[in-house]
């Protein structure tokens, strides 16, 4: 049986590839690594993501990296009975998740490393109303996604309006590039039908913070890695010089 499933999966491969290769130009996610920004991202994460998605590899108290104390974490970011040393387990179980959404919501611990910041940043901003979907929501970068737009109270509701390029400063440049056949920017315009609690700009910033947090969570040691890296490079550079001098000294008598 298992084998049959795999084989049928393999047969579906080409269509799958077609479905996923819907060429969407991703917006580039702004770099967010200031503690305040990451804290804001963490708040959005625990409020909106953590009820369905887990982050099983991430411990709450690791958030001290963001400049928070354990008390602050316990008071502001933990809504379940979890202890501060626990990992971010999902409240809903996987079986229910599968029932609700057709697929169990993936763990988000390393989602930023799998998808990339740009993908997440674009994905979270391109949900639109689509009555043909069971959830009533669809997405540009992940067509027919099982996840509804959980941030709609913030962003509001939008529908797709196929029309002129998005009015952004880069639009003209992109059009010129497109004429040369370099790439095709998404010619989609959203129309907000029901405003949310945030303005579009506020929402973009909130999503940028959230993505910044997901990137941080993908590799909490990244900052430490860079700091240690400079010391190691410096030490190895000095050692290279020392060994070069040593080599020259020894090799003087080779004729």
């Amino acid at each position, binding site marked *: 049986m*298992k084998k049959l499933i795999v084989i049928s999966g393999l047969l579906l491969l080409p269509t799958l590839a077609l479905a996923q290769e819907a060429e969407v130009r991703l917006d580039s996610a702004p770099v967010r690594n200031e503690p305040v920004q990451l804290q804001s991202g963490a708040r959005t994460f625990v409020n909106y993501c953590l009820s369905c998605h887990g982050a099983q590899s991430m411990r709450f108290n690791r958030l001290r990296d963001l400049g928070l104390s354990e008390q602050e974490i316990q008071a502001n970011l933990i809504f379940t009975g979890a202890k501060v040393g626990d990992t971010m387990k999902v409240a809903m179980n996987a079986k229910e998740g599968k029932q609700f959404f057709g697929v169990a919501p993936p763990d988000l611990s390393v989602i930023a490393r799998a998808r990339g910041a740009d993908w997440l940043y674009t994905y979270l901003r391109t949900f639109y109303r689509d009555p043909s979907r069971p959830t009533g929501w669809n997405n540009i970068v992940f067509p027919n996604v099982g996840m509804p737009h959980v941030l709609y109270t913030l962003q509001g509701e939008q529908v797709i309006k196929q029309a002129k390029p998005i009015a952004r400063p880069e639009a003209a440049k992109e059009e010129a590039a497109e004429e040369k056949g370099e790439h095709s920017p998404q010619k989609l315009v959203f129309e907000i039908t029901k405003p949310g609690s945030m303005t579009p700009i506020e929402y973009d910033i909130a999503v940028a913070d959230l993505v910044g947090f997901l990137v941080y969570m993908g590799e909490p040691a990244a900052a430490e890695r860079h700091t240690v890296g400079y010391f190691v490079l410096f030490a190895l550079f000095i050692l290279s010089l020392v060994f070069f001098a040593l080599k020259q000294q*020894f*090799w003087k008598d*080779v004729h």
Partner: protein
Amino acid sequence: MSRIISGLTALQGWIDARFPFTSQWKAHASEYYAPKNFNFWYYFGALSGLVLVNQLVTGIFLTMHYKPDALLAFASVEYIMRDVPWGWLIRYMHSTGASLFFVCIYLHMFRGLLYGSYRKPRELVWILGMAIFLCLMGEAFFGYLLPWGQMSYWGAQVIINLFDALPIIGHDLSIWIRGDYVVSDATLNRFFAFHVIAIPLLLLGLVSAHILALHEVGSNNPDGIEIKKNKDPVTHLPLDGIPFHPYYTVKDSFGAMVFLLIFAIIVFFGPEMGGYFLEANNFVPADSLKTPPEISPVWYFTPYYSILRSITTDYMWIIRAAVLVMAIAIFWSVKTNWIRWGTLGIAIVLALLSWVLDPKVWGVGLMGTSTMIFFLMPWLDRSAVKSIRYKGPNYKFAITVWVIAFLILGYLGTKPVSDVRTLVGQFCTTLYFAFFFAMPWYTRADKCKPEPERVTWK
């Protein structure tokens, strides 16, 4: 102070009476005479050894925290990355080391191709080295499954399914390898066993044999001439040789520092290496029900993967033509009767098989051949000289074309297939094999320059 020294000397005497310590140190280091004209290419043997040590040491620490269990493996890697003190460093050193191992080994092997290091009397050094290369590919393949990401899982699935293509035994063989009908917990456990103990033991044994064989015959050098031919009449030491220790230990230490500098830049500032060392898709846990749209091996396997993908039904005509040409060429050039008729027999069998067997089987066979054909180098190269410095235009042209074909194949292996890419791949596959199969003829006909009496130096 003098008491300490006399104490140490006494200890050395005590050991030497029971174990060949000093004599081995002399034989392999302080009195092993290596040519003095080693150049840049000669760093990569020692560097491969350094990376081997890195892999073993970091591997031991990873094994302390990693869980070879389909349900726990993926999370245990993330546990290492987050909760184990300095775990991220150990893991990145191991993952970066894996790729740089291949960088070093490829450059080390290419040095052999440049300077004819496989030629008599170093055939066994070369063959043992090739065995190390094959073990290393196995080690990398087994290890790549362990993080249990999507690419780990489906990469293993694709490669094991290659065995499925083999006639008669193929299906059962692939199940036997997996221990299940699909890649599963059973597969993960056995791959773990191969990765952490079976192959490393083999590798260590082979590396020791490789070095022993090398020290028996002595190192080659960029001039491809034997330094043992010119010995000091009094001391009987090679005139162009210098003791490995301290000259090459100190030189290789310098090389090691520069190498570690590059290593550290990757580990600390780009461990994913743009997706070539750690693929994005491998941060998605393995899912036997979700085939990723693109399955591509890690960069060091891509040339062979391209060769596999190049063998299509149309390409079988190229193979048939190649078999015919080879048969005629051997029949023409060899005067020994049993070889001539044997060749004819083999050619007829191959021609028949080209219709009987599926092109996929040929693909698997040729992919295997492409990694193992290096074994034959000592007998394929018929040049009058060893080093490319004195070889004629034929070999220089052939190896240039081969390197370009190898690089293009490697690039194509990272990309999805398309009609044009397949054609280019097939063209490069043909060039890749032509380099080896035509070698006896073009090297024999080469106009080589005379070798110098003594090594060229400074």
